[in-house]
């Protein structure tokens, strides 16, 4: 994926990555499930998610942006935008 940013971000890949980080079955990571309130993600785990996103997609996520990692949908949006900018 990161070798070809123009291919976009596969939402299911992203779902699998987040599910792995949160130690949850992928089906629990729905598009709109709120990481903090629905999936009990604390700030440390959110940072882990951010680190793994950075590694997989070779992007940089600022500390302030970690707060915006609220749902799969918003994460998808953020990662896609960053990859688009990097083109």
């Amino acid at each position, binding site marked *: 994926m990161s070798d070809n940013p123009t291919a976009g971000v596969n939402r299911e890949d992203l779902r699998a990555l987040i599910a792995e980080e949160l130690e949850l079955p992928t089906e629990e990571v729905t598009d709109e499930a709120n990481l903090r309130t629905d999936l009990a993600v604390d700030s440390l785990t959110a940072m882990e998610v951010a*680190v793994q996103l950075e590694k997989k997609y070779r992007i940089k996520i600022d500390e302030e942006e970690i707060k915006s990692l609220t749902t799969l949908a918003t994460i998808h949006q953020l990662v896609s935008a960053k990859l688009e900018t990097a083109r």
Partner: protein
Amino acid sequence: MVTVSTGELAVVGMGVVGPGISGPADALAPAGAAAPGWFRAQVALPGRGYRRLPDACKYLLAASRLAVGDAGDRLTQTERDHRGAAVAINNTGAALLEAMDRTIMREGAAEMSPSSSPFIAMSSFASRLSMEHDITGFNLTVNSPVTAGLEALQIAARAVAAARARAVLVGAVEEALSPSQSRAPALGSSPQSSAVGSPLCSSALGSSLSSAPGTEVGAAVLHCEPAVGGCARYGTCRARGAFLAPGVAARDAPAVLGPLVGDDPPGRIDAVLDDSAVGTAAARWLDRLTGTCEVVIVPAPAQAGCLTPLQRVVGLFAQEHTAPTRRAVLAASAQGTLAYAELTVTPRGGSSLEPCAPRVAAEGGK
């Protein structure tokens, strides 16, 4: 010589995790080798949030779960502000810190795992324990070489005596040193291993002999309460400490160890000693108790951690007796710190332990 003593604890529950150990009854057995996969974290700690923790933290949490479960619901029946934790560590984070250093040097600080980074602070092991059990009364980490586990008992006793806590998890946790950190020769191979070679040891060698040097691995946790009003399911315990200056250890041993052990020694003393001047002096002083009590010398490797002494406490409490039985554990470090825990083991028949009555509402609930 000054000997510091504190109040008395009731031991309600116990948990121990280590290679080849399946429960408190195994805690006196020779330590098994820490073969890869000996600890099954997913079995010991089912659920989310544990995977990225350092292994040592997992040992501690697993042992604490066992201890808290063993004690029934008494911890959750205690107000969170009256719950405390005293955790002993020595080598627990050493290999982890080395790995973190390596990551920083080779890849940069940004590559450090957010989950393991907090463990740069050695108090994080006890902090995580407190998070696990919603402990908000107090949380202390003790680092004294070898003696820290028994000193944690002493701290807990002082806290309950001051009514600062009504339930304290007292733990010790250790992790193996990395190959570059482990500099100890094979146990007993040192020409100066006089403690190991003392007449006492030849008939009563303890667990560490079969361990690789510097490889204390695992955790032990005791759920303790005030002796008065608590549930002495396993028994009661007092701990005290003293200091024996290494330079004059042989000369001062009687003056220091005499008051520490007291005039009425228990039926058995397990002494965790290395081959330092302090350990040797302690072993020779204990020799005089032959005929009065059984002395079991547990040789400690040069880089010993603090787990073995507390593990001996667990093992002695787990033994069955038909009458109240007095036991003790003595630990000494090469630096001169001495710690002594006096146990009175509650009698019980068969292998079953009586459960404690639930705490009454007036004692506080969550």
